[in-house]
């Protein structure tokens, strides 16, 4: 044992824990682990009430740990670390609650099932959880629609399900192919709009049966349609 260490315990600052406070902290933390665990396993409370309760207890648990184990706020002088901690918690709340809020809004516009369907079609997964997704595998016939001098040819295309259609832009400007009625469009199989640069083409797979109108969003008069036969 070194000599210097002997005067360490009578440090004037009160930022160190005593055996007493560690034991109380430990017992409380065990209690606040057991309660949410019991609530979840016993299912005596359910749904949002249960979620709110266990989240509340987690925050309480954190407070116990910070007070009894980290001894935050019991240090000397200006409590810069407390200030820093509080501002960090603020940033965390903005990041976490903000993300959940924004993403829930997106989910509101596109449900989980729709996300799965969209992904399945993009990735060509034909079965999901034992159900057919309608996604196409392999390539079938390709149909070409050319946009030249503001004209669409052919105006009408007939195709079978799982064929592909290529929009070719031979004009000297960018075309933005959208589906449905202008200006409020509908997506076709997850495609909201296809940006086709001059001299280029864009191909999509026809995996939704029915007749669909399309037009250039920048010049709504340039329009046509295609029919997909199942």
């Amino acid at each position, binding site marked *: 044992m070194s000599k210097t260490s002997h005067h360490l315990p009578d440090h004037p600052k009160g930022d160190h*824990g005593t055996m007493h406070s*560690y034991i109380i902290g*430990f017992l409380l933390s*065990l209690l606040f682990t057991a309660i949410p665990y019991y609530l*979840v396993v016993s299912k005596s409370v359910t749904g949002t009430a249960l979620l709110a309760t266990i989240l509340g207890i987690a925050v309480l648990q954190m407070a116990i740990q910070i007070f009894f184990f980290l001894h935050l706020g019991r240090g000397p002088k200006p409590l810069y670390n407390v200030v*820093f901690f509080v501002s960090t918690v603020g940033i965390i709340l903005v990041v976490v609650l903000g*993300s959940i809020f924004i993403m829930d809004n997106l989910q509101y516009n596109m449900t989980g099932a729709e996300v799965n369907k969209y992904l399945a079609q993009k990735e060509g997964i034909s079965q999901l959880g034992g159900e057919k997704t309608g996604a196409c595998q392999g390539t079938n016939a390709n149909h070409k629609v050319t946009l030249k001098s503001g004209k669409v040819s052919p105006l009408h295309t007939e195709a079978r399900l799982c064929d592909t259609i290529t929009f070719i832009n031979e004009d000297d400007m960018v075309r933005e192919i959208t589906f449905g009625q202008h200006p409020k469009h509908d997506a076709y199989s997850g495609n909201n709009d296809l940006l086709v640069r001059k001299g280029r083409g864009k191909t999509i797979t026809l995996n939704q049966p029915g007749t669909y109108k399309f037009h250039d969003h920048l010049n709504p008069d340039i329009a046509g349609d295609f029919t997909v036969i199942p």
Partner: protein
Amino acid sequence: MAHALAESHEEAANDRVMFGFWVYLMTDLLMFAVLFAVYAVLQGNTLGGPTGRDLFSLPLVLAETLILLTSSFTCGIGMIAARAGNKNQVLTWFGITFTLGLMFLGLELYEFAELIHEGHTITTNAFFSSFFTLVGTHGLHIISGLLWMAITLIYVLKRGLNKHMVRKLTLLSLFWHFLDIVWIFIFTIVYLRAFV
């Protein structure tokens, strides 16, 4: 007089180190917050596959939680011994903390191995990507904490306790309590929440 001046200098340096380490912990906490946000958003995106409710084992997670909470407590007792200058007790209590940490790590690796064995890897879907990233990042912190603890204990064993060593142990204990707090939120938001 000169002695007292040197003492207060050292104390100021000590406070700076503590605050610097605190700043590190808070930025680390921010990183975990982002991973939690990602998990909260992506947990439902399983591409039709099994969810956490189908796969997680609550008793296993409870055991992990109790082990980590106990290790946080033994780490605190170790700090009391360190401030009292009791080398043997420091080695004992931190030795127990180290063992509990290893047990926790073992259980976590066991859980990961089971999931991967059943074909649920980090690339399976967005849910598993966010799950393995969040829980795995905490696991990596535990591994670094254990390495740090092992090295510090060897130092204590060879050189004995002095002021610098007590400071090192204080930082280590802050880190360990911090990992405990992060785990409480993993326990609640990842595991318990899956069964709500």
